[in-house]
């Protein structure tokens, strides 16, 4: 009786072990996308330079040059931006040309997954921007000019909501200003339903400077 039970258990265990072993092999063969993305980010791939050479070793971007922070951005959002650059529906800095040409869809997905997995960091303080006004725009908007609060779509402290409303906290003020200009001039059009370009057109240069000063200073959780 006992022996028969033992045989049954052994018989049941063997196939499970085989399946586990096999699935382990598959994972190893395909590699973890975050790890694959991390390798591209730090070392590049073929003729593609390392992302970190412009976007920083921690994905913090280069605020002075206006290269965007990527750390903590939603993976789907990031992937779509690169694919849009590849498809020509989002303008790109010439430095991004070899990146979008040299990476395939799987690699773009991997790089996006990597940057989404690492924590965002606060940028350096911006000289001259009206931080208090920026905070007011982020949290309350300026409804007398039909400007909703950034947080109404981008979430509390502009930490990002899903694939359509990217994280703004910690983002380079110069990058943000450049993008606002692109939305205003209809040079960037890959927002869903034209939501961002509509609001961007209502922002003055002073609003944009204030927003940049406040948003660049926000850290991981969106707090200062």
């Amino acid at each position, binding site marked *: 009786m006992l022996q028969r039970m033992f045989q049954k258990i052994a018989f049941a265990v063997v196939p499970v072990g085989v399946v586990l072993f096999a699935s382990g092999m598959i994972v190893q063969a395909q590699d973890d996308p975050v790890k694959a993305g991390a390798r591209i980010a730090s070392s590049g791939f073929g003729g593609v330079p390392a992302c970190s050479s412009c976007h920083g070793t921690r994905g913090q971007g280069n605020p002075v040059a206006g290269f965007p922070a990527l750390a903590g951005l939603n993976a789907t959002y990031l992937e779509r931006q690169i694919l849009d650059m590849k498809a020509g529906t989002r303008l790109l800095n010439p430095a991004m040309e070899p990146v979008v040409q040299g990476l395939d869809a799987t690699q773009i997905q991997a790089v996006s997954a990597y940057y989404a997995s690492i924590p965002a960091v606060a940028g350096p303080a911006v000289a001259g921007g009206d931080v208090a006004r920026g905070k007011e725009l982020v949290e309350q908007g300026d*409804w007398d000019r*039909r400007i*909703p609060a950034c947080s109404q*779509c981008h*979430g509390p402290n502009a930490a990002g909501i899903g694939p*359509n409303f990217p994280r703004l906290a910690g983002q380079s003020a110069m990058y943000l200003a450049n993008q606002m200009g692109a939305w205003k001039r209809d040079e960037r059009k890959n927002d869903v*339903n034209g*939501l961002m370009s*509509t609001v961007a057109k*209502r922002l003055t240069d002073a609003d944009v400077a204030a927003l940049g000063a406040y948003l660049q200073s926000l850290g991981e959780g969106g707090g200062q």
Partner: protein
Amino acid sequence: MKVIMLVLLGMLAGCTPDKSAPTPSSSASTETPADPVAVAQPVSGHIAPKLSEIPEGPFGDSVRRGAAIFFDTPGKAANFVGNSQSCSNCHMGGGRVADSGPMWAAWGMYPAYRKKNNHVNTMEERLQGCFTFSQNAPASASGAAPPKGDPVLVDLQAYIFWLAKDVPIGKEMPGRGFPTPKKPATGYSVERGKVVFDAQCALCHGAEGQGLRTSADHQQFPPLWGPESYNWGAGMHRVNTAAGFIKANMPLGKADLSDQEAWDVAAYINSKPRPKDPRQVGSLEDNDQKNHDEDCLYGDSHEGKTLGVGVSRAL
């Protein structure tokens, strides 16, 4: 297969159109400006003070608490809210935006007679009405709106009074309420409304109108139907009211739907299940006769079901 278009459904059965509905606001803001700069101009006769201008001291503290309740009602007035709706979901910009039910335009118009309950209402009672219907207080911890004199109502009134600084008493201000867009000659269609909803609204409010909750204490986008939405007695369940709100305010920051799209999507949203009308004591039919002589779908038959039965939160 027969496709039944619910055009003019409101006239077919159940609710009948409200012939006493107020005429649309005459403010110029209902026109769509071609120049985006024009949009950026103030659209009403009143610019409410900013939150940063709330004075110090006990009165200012009450205003601040009122503002906090207004923006996060389920969190700050939890005992009296039975769904996931905040005042600011319908009264944009914390009740300061013209054509979005601005609170400063309401303050000086109360006490007022209301057909809804057939007597003169103070502002305090009017606010109780918002809790009972829009915030579905019957499903809240206390089971009812805040009682008269409750600090929640005191603080909300302090906030509203403060927003209305310098607004004349008894004067109908431009931008009050929601301007009703012209009802299309061919009526509205729930089916067309679904197309508008899927393309323009689902992005934030979810494919099933469920909204988006990002944490236990943060509702990013409000639910538009289901147990966490306004109930069958709320003003927003009327197609004309919802069409007006949507036309003036949605999609957020853009507000560029046509009159037809606004009516259609308002009908679609208000053909969906939501908590029952708290005024229903007898049958749904009786309540339809008594309380729904207006442009709504309450009591109508839709997709084989009678609208207005009501859905509850899972316990």
